């Protein structure tokens, strides 16, 4: 074990306390994290879950945290190392979105979420691998090569935030930032056996998150435990004047003392998320988790969200449509890759053809198509109408006395690298997760057991801005299931 290696075993709150007391220096915490990354083979020749680090900068950040501590200002994440997904802007490490078109791009500003982490004393130790522009569910669509699942390196870590999920699973950090558009935090959390939270749309500022589909995008948090994730979200949540879609709502306390009883809590079990062809082993783990919730005093009720089966189709109209517009700025004019071509149009074509990968190109073309004159009404407008129906499904259930929903996070555990060559097969990985993005409600995945040694995630979905209730149940369930659910 390396010097300070024990520090990576501390929870985020414990580490911050240790640093705050002066029992550990932030530098040592950062070194322990980097050492763990090396040990786990996190870099390109290994799991390929991390893309960029800068030790000198990490030390500078650590020294700054130490100075603030010495001045009596101890943040809630003092000295806690954090990994950030490569599509969230950081001034000290590149922000390349897993894409060739932004290779080497360094943002002149920090994302609001990153700035809030730094203000709380967290240290950004690395940027993590991801599906290019967050388009994918396996972190295989990265211009910098596929990432591998630390639990089973022949399998994918999920995606698109696979690198962040895997960093937490590999013990490199306790907290990592990811981003969600259709399940990109929860699905890799499930595949890697960690906790992944997608907050309510508007709960966390999107400023500095490189946009994929603006009406669906939300920065999310990974934690080794529910508490790590709750602490992470607590730090980054809240109104941001730089993001007009961020919500002006108070941020309640997410971290709870060990309560335990869930008496009076009604958990809905939506039948659409337990289809007949669901992997029986996944079903079994979910039913076991629901039994635990019952034994904690919760009432479990069968409910229905009838428009669920339209979600993937709706998602794959809206998300590409917005992406086709959001990615127009990568044109070779101001920053990033530029390839010379014949005239202006030639430059655009050469730059974008060579800068974007296949999946990104596919979605830009799809999105351009559905927004075109003559197709807009049939696709985009129709999809928005169905999106409203999907959101109403949730509203209706949450207005009927149900506090939370419980579902499997994914239909299967982590699949093998290269197993899903048909894009549509890949899209179906998000079948249980993209509904929450379409409806804007908060949701999270937490480990509920294993199948053949592979982690299985259970999903909690709450009403808008009810993350607190979601965390309360997650804490209770996690405690009940014990460490066995994690490792």
């Amino acid at each position, binding site marked *: 074990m390396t010097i300070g290696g024990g520090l990576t075993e501390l929870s985020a709150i414990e580490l911050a306390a240790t640093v705050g007391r002066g029992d550990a220096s932030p530098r040592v915490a950062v070194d322990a994290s980097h050492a763990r990354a090396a040990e786990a083979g996190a870099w390109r020749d290994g799991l390929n879950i991390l893309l960029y680090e800068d030790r000198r900068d990490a030390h500078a950040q650590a020294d700054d945290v130490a100075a603030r501590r010495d001045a009596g200002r101890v943040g809630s994440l003092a000295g806690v190392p954090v990994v950030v997904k490569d599509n969230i*802007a950081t001034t000290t490490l590149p922000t390349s979105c897993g894409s060739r078109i932004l290779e080497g791009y360094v943002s002149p500003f920090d994302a609001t979420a990153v700035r809030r982490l730094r203000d709380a004393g967290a240290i950004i130790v690395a940027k993590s691998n991801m599906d290019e522009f967050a388009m994918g569910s396996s972190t295989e669509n990265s211009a910098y090569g596929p990432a591998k699942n630390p639990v089973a390196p022949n399998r994918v870590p999920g995606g698109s935030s696979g690198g962040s999920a895997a960093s937490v699973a590999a013990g490199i950090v306790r907290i990592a930032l990811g981003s969600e558009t259709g399940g990109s935090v929860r699905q890799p959390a499930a595949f890697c056996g960690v906790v992944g939270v997608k907050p309510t749309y508007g709960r966390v500022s999107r400023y500095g998150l490189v946009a994929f589909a603006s009406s669906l995008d939300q920065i999310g948090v990974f934690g080794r435990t529910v508490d790590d994730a709750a602490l992470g979200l607590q730090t980054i949540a809240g109104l941001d004047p*730089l993001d007009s879609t961020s919500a002006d709502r108070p941020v309640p306390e997410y971290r709870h003392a060990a309560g335990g009883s869930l008496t009076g809590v009604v958990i809905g079990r939506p039948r659409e998320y337990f289809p007949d062809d669901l992997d029986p082993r996944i079903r079994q783990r979910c039913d076991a988790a629901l039994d635990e919730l019952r034994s904690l005093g919760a009432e479990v009720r069968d409910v229905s969200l009838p428009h669920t089966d339209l979600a993937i189709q709706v998602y794959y109209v809206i998300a590409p449509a917005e992406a086709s517009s959001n990615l127009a*700025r990568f044109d070779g004019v101001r920053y990033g890759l530029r390839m010379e071509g014949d005239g202006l149009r030639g430059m655009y074509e050469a730059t974008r053809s060579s800068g974007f990968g296949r999946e990104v190109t596919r979605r830009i073309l799809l999105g351009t198509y559905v927004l075109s004159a003559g197709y807009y009404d049939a696709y985009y407008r129709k999809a928005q109408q169905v999106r409203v129906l999907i959101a109403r499904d949730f509203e209706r259930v949450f207005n009927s006395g149900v506090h939370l929903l419980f579902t499997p996070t994914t239909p299967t555990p982590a699949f093998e690298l290269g197993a899903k060559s048909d894009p549509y097969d890949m899209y179906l990985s998000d079948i249980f997760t993209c509904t929450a993005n379409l409806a804007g409600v908060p949701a999270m995945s937490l480990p509920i057991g294993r199948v053949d040694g592979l982690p299985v995630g259970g999903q909690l979905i709450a009403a808008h801005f009810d993350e607190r209730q979601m965390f309360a149940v997650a804490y209770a369930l996690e405690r009940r299931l014990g460490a066995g659910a994690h490792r």
Partner: protein
Amino acid sequence: MSTTAASPSVPDYEMVVGLEVHVQLDTATKIFCRCSTDFGAPPNRNTCPVCLALPGALPVLNEHAVDLAIRAALALGCRVQPTSTFARKNYFYPDLPKGYQISQFDQPLAIGGRLRAGSRSDGSPIDIRITRVHMEEDAGKSIHDRFQGATAVDLNRAGVPLIEIVSEPDLRGADDADAYLRALKQILEYTAVSDVSMEKGSLRVDANISVRRPGEMALGTKTEVKNMNSFSGVTRALAVEFARQCAVLERGGRIEQQTMLWDANTGEVRPARSKEGSHDYRYFPDPDLPPLVVSPDRIERITRELPELPAARRERYRAEYPGLTAYDVEVLTASTGLGDYFEQIARQTEEAKTAANWMMGDVLATLKATNQTIEHFSVRPADLATLLNLVRDSVVSHTAAKQIFGVMSRTGDPPLQVAEREHLLKVTDDSALVAWIDEVFAEHAAEAKRFLDGERRLQGVLVGHVMKKSKGSADPKRVNQLLSTRIGT
């Protein structure tokens, strides 16, 4: 076929025109970020992550720009929509950093206005319906002639707030267009929504034009004429395009729907490069910006703050100052500054017609000659009013007043001070007048004798001599009295 403005009238056709006017709102900062809107800064100085469209940057709406846009909409008689939405207009161009322009599409800020722009030569009113007023951001500027073989991009203007004012096709000729634009410009000046400077590009006009036989209801195929950068450019371009369309139809041809560019140097319109008009902009609501909700309170507040508009001010002048001619009213209400200046003098002198005459004459002439604006005119209105009152009270003569005004406009000094310094006060002191009369009698002895012998018609001549001797400062009334007493003795 004629393509010059010299032969605009083809009697068998009627011109049908709708205008799209882009107006830069007079804000200190851009519409979606806090960058300065200063004109003339070094290239790309006024930029930030938002208006450079750096990855991860997001727009935040400038509420002051919204206030100005609402003010303009209300002044044009539009209904401000309780909810409007921002949409993305998608197209690739180097001076469009995001690859889309944030504009408003199917839910504009305001709809259904009207603008009265005076009347035509036949007396019919030029009454133009306004279709809509919407908000949008400006693009940057591509500079093609600065670097050999390369295009430079200046993004200082990218994100500058604009409103687009779209009229119905209610204009029937180039003169209508000119009257409409002048009336529009006047309203935008009155409401201080924009500095309406065409040189700075803060007012830009595109025209949709078609022709039809008089009496026909259906509209002909229209072309869009762009690149007109002055009002006279608009009228000339419309006349030329009208003539072109008429000629095409006369030849039995068909008008092609296309975008035409006006070339002010050659006085020609020519089709824009291919497919300008066939863009598919793939509009959709911008997910980065929530719907723009305008509360009734906000509309009420902005309505309350609206200044008096040109039409109302003209109406009031006609009622309050019946002595003014229609032309006086037109000129005095041309801008708020001119009207305010006039009103202060009229109030202080209680002689509106005299005040108007001074305004229309010496004031405007001096402004023009010295290239000053009324707002910064060296002669303060209170001082000019004082000068007029000095004339009324016979302290200075009318002739002297003109001289005094000339000095005031150079020095900014108050009138009485100027009159004293320049010895232009009327002299009413009898001893001085008597001395001048004696001198005149001595110098013009023959005339004086005839006058004293009873030839009373010579009195005027003698008064003239005294006035001349006094350089205009003698009070002629008193000189007459003094001369009369001499006959009596």
